[in-house]
């Protein structure tokens, strides 16, 4: 057992030994169970651990002690669905089937990590699994089972990805936002100890960006089918242009547009901001000064010219022969998107792009490939979906950061606010991090006074109710906000923010967690380690008890994979007679 520093029973508390204990375990790093030093002397040949950063879509794998992953790949192919997503079937049988499929796919990925990517013998390599804070336990169990049973690795440690990202920038304290594919998670970490209860998450992340991009392209993109013959290519493109067929936008095409064309523009001006989430134009003029009634009536005609012709005469494709949005079947979703389009076209100066795409099978009559025309505002403003807050369940990324910050103990807020770190693949969009900084400041800024104060009808003599101001308590923090890896940190008034903002090493946000894992492996540390012997002994005990394979899932839960959700939470005062824990279950990791 190589998990030394874990306090056996956290609930046990002896009030007589404070000072001694404090001297004994003085180092902040040591006292953190997440960063427990394991063995100093490793066996021959296994010093380099295998670091696996397994996401639902993209995996990064490599050896510890190296500055970059050896291999990055789509788990299960670029065209396939992600390994897991946020929902699971409710039916028990479907769930079991889904788990089986997941196990097979994970097994394929994990085997290919060792055999194809790293070309190494799994039996001689310890593994550090970079673990997302909200990775479902069943996935973790499956991965551990494959690693121990199928690949027979000597040990597996789980290291929280947020902490590893922080290590990669040379720190152990900070507020880490990980914008991945399925969700964006903000987690404050103090002295290498993730403050899991302060974790905040939102599904506004890469997957949502992809679906939003697809919706915008379907509605506002233009598709030119390939000319039917080589001589027919003289037909002006405007006559050939059609709406984008759904089949053209395969997952790979949308993904490519996202990676190669999209970026994040500057924040919209506050006066032109619209609550884009559910507002229909003209629904509530008073609160949305940017959409005066005159303009919303105008919008119809605007859109019959695809909303661009008047502004951009230079674009030859802008006049679409068939009006793409018939006013008759203008249902709510589309009209909402229209309002968005109007707002965004006004706020975007990006160039229009053309992309060659494979025409759909049904229309493959022409020569060559079709052309997809991506309006510039889609490129610039698709990512707005990530910064639009206001929903309780789906707060914007800035709100997630602020919510986590609100929950942080007061005396840590300044520290956390001045060391925000952005990691994850979605934040690789150019301009993402500066925009996040802008959004943070904007969200904390005092709310604008509403145009019409709702006067209190019951007590007209009293002053109107103060507006709900969620982040008022963070307003003193405003000068301290700084993002460690902001490539363009604004000049702050506080020296501390200036000392932190943009001072992180220029590791790319997507690989930060992997680099941290590599660092942890090189320093012979990492998360809590589970050895093969431990696993095998529990496994053997399970199978001796009953030979039934089908229930092994439940039984194997007994091997306690360390996870922060399984940590015993002290309920009230610690008991005088602590019950011995079945096995050391540290907080987190």
């Amino acid at each position: 057992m190589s998990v030394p520093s874990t306090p056996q029973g956290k609930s046990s508390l002896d009030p007589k030994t404070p000072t001694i204990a404090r001297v004994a375990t003085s180092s902040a790093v040591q006292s953190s169970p997440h960063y427990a030093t394991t063995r100093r002397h490793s066996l021959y040949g296994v010093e380099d651990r295998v670091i696996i950063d397994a996401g639902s879509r993209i995996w990064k794998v490599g050896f510890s002690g190296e500055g970059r992953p050896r291999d990055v790949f789509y788990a299960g192919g670029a065209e396939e669905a992600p390994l897991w997503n946020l929902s699971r079937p409710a039916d028990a049988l479907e769930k079991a089937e889904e788990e089986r499929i997941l196990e097979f796919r994970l097994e394929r990925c994990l085997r290919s990590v060792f055999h194809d990517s790293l070309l190494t013998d799994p039996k001689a390599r310890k593994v550090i699994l970079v673990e997302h804070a909200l990775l479902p336990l069943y996935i973790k169990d499956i991965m551990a089972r494959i690693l121990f049973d199928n690949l027979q690795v000597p040990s597996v440690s789980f290291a929280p990805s947020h902490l590893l990202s922080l290590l990669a920038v040379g720190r152990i304290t900070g507020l880490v936002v990980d914008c991945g594919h399925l969700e964006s998670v903000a987690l404050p970490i103090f002295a290498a100890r993730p403050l899991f209860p302060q974790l905040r998450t939102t599904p506004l992340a890469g997957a949502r960006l992809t679906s939003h991009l697809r919706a915008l392209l379907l509605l506002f993109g233009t598709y030119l089918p390939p000319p039917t013959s080589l001589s027919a290519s003289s037909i002006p493109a405007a006559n050939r242009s059609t709406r984008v067929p759904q089949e053209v936008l395969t997952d790979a095409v949308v993904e490519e547009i996202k990676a190669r064309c999209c970026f994040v523009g500057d924040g919209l001006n506050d006066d032109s901001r619209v609550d884009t989430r559910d507002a229909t134009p003209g629904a509530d003029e008073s609160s949305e000064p940017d959409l005066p009634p005159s303009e919303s009536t105008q919008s119809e005609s605007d859109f019959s010219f695809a909303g661009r012709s008047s502004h951009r005469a230079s674009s030859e494709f802008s006049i679409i022969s068939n009006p793409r949005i018939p006013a008759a079947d203008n249902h709510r979703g589309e009209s909402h998107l229209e309002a968005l389009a109007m707002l965004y076209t006004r706020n975007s100066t990006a160039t229009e792009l053309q992309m060659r795409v494979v025409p759909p099978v049904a229309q493959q009559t022409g020569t060559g490939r079709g052309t997809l025309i991506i309006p510039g505002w889609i490129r610039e403003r698709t990512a707005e979906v990530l910064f639009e807050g206001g929903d309780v369940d789906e707060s914007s990324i800035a709100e997630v950061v602020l919510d986590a910050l609100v929950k942080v103990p007061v005396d840590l807020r300044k520290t956390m606010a001045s060391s925000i770190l952005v990691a994850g693949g979605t934040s690789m969009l150019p301009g993402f991090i500066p925009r996040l900084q802008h959004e943070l400041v904007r969200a904390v800024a005092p709310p604008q006074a509403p145009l019409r104060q709702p006067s209190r009808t019951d007590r007209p003599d009293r002053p109107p109710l103060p507006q709900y101001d969620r982040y008022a308590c963070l307003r003193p923090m405003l000068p301290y906000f700084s993002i460690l890896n902001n490539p363009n940190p604004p000049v702050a008034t506080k020296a501390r923010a200036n000392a932190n903002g943009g001072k992180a090493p220029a590791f790319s946000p997507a690989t930060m967690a992997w680099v941290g894992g590599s660092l942890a492996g090189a320093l012979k540390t990492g998360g809590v380690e589970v050895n093969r012997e431990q696993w095998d002994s529990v496994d053997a005990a399970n199978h001796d008890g009953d030979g039934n394979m089908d229930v092994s899932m439940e039984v194997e839960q007994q091997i306690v994979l360390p996870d922060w959700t399984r940590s015993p939470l002290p309920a009230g005062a610690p008991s005088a007679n602590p019950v011995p824990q079945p096995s050391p279950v540290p907080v987190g990791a």
Partner: protein
Amino acid sequence: MPPTVDYHCPCLSRSALPPPPHLPSSSFNFHALNELFFCEECDAVRCNRCVSVEVSGYYCPNCLFEVPSASVRAEKNRCARNCFMCPDCRNTLSVVPSDPPDPGDGRMAIPISTIGEPPFFLYCNHCRWDSAEVGITFEKPTGLAAQLQKFEDSAPDSLEFERLKEHFEPVIRASSLSSSTTTAPAAHPSSAAHSHRVRTNSITAAASAALARDIPGVGKHNPLARSGNRAGAGGNKDKTANQDEMPEYRSRVDVTSASKLGSGGGEIDVEYMRHLENVGEVASLEQRWMNSWATPLQAAELKPLRIPLHSKRSKRCPVCAHILIKPEQKAQSVRYKIKLVASNYLPAITAALPHQQDAVGDSSKRTLSKSTAAAAVAAEEERSAAGIHAGKTYPFHLALTNMLYDPIQVRLTVQRVHAPAALPPSSGRASPDKAPTTRRPPFAVSLPSSSFPIAAFAEAWEYEDDEDDDMFGLDDDDEFGIAGRVAGRDKDARGAGKVKMVGVLEKKANVTVVGGEVVIGKEARGNVKFNMLVSYTYRSDDPAPSESNDADGPPSRAAVANKPPEIKTFAFYTVVDLGPIIPREESR
């Protein structure tokens, strides 16, 4: 799609029963025969999912150089010689010399050396990418990777990484020292000096550890951390600064300065993207995602990639660790030293639908005679004729080929999916949303229920054309022999009347064709896919489990001659997929 037969590998699972065929996950448990191995020690099928893999050698797929395993690690699994890939199209790059200097008198320059003129650069013959565009040229045309090595060693990510390691190392060392005093305080004399009270039990130790947790905002008196505490000017003014007592890390290259060079997602990148004219100018995700360092977006900045090494692998049985397959060491060789593949042990089974073959034959005849305009119609007809329609009955053929040197007796059994407890409801059928609520599959399969023989494998010249099944004296199974012959003879006249469909249809050399029949239900959907248990018995004359006699002569004769023959049985599951059912409403 022609019907397929895949073989089940239990993969160390405790239950030998394969999963029900209608579940999508079942396809992961079945493999084509040519992908499977056979462990003689365990007498079991092994697949690529369960074997343990060992690397028996590394080589470059381009230059076929065998790389010693010692240098593989240092070279990051990539070829350390002259093999590079184009970053754009992943084609192999070739080394080309520069143009010879123009002598100025208008004549062709005489090449000075045979290798050409330095500087050399890498050139892609496919997309015309060349490495001079990104400023990579070479003095010599050999050892390019070594010439590039100095750039790689000084890559910003590895330098920064080393710096980070130096930054954390003293902290970790200090913490591990103090952790050793915490975990074993009684044994340590120096900690006894610290602690007045000897912590005798784990409870007090745990309590002290719990109390030792740093409390946010409460600074600890820690001589070690204080000495390392050189938090800058901010620390003095700001009481809350540097609460974690970690010395501040100063980056070698921070992201602000990196982004001034046009990388890292800053304003320069945004401006570049905003005025982008051509998608191809931006490198794709796959071209960028290996970089852990902030890299420019432009595709023009991509560097040549060293070709990743491949490995030759030997595979072992996961249970007994015997080698199942082992390649020859040489990279050029494609032979194996040891090769225990399942196709040498298990009978090969192929499935066919005779009506499908007829339909294909007919339509191809018709297509030949008609114009191309009718081809589409013919193809449509063929699809309809060759498909499996709901509510009809179809014969199918299974051809079993014996690869053993002994004759075998085979028995085929369709796995009944009867136990409702073990069987998830058929909601997981190929089309789960439209799935019928019945538990049973919507079709019934009949196969010959008794066992039938397949002659031994022999070299081709040992078979004689005329006496295909009398040769090995297998007439002990008369009824099937006759049935097979009758059916085989009637095969050409099929369709004329009622012929025998279920039973042995044809025997020829070491191949036996059996017929089966599938009755499709009226409301059937999905695929006709069923699990079939194949069990075969063979005579093994030695107790050693090598049933493939290495005797080249007719092994059956030798076996009959002496010794009481030892009968062994082996059984395995297969899944037979005859193809999708065309539902009622669609069928014309």
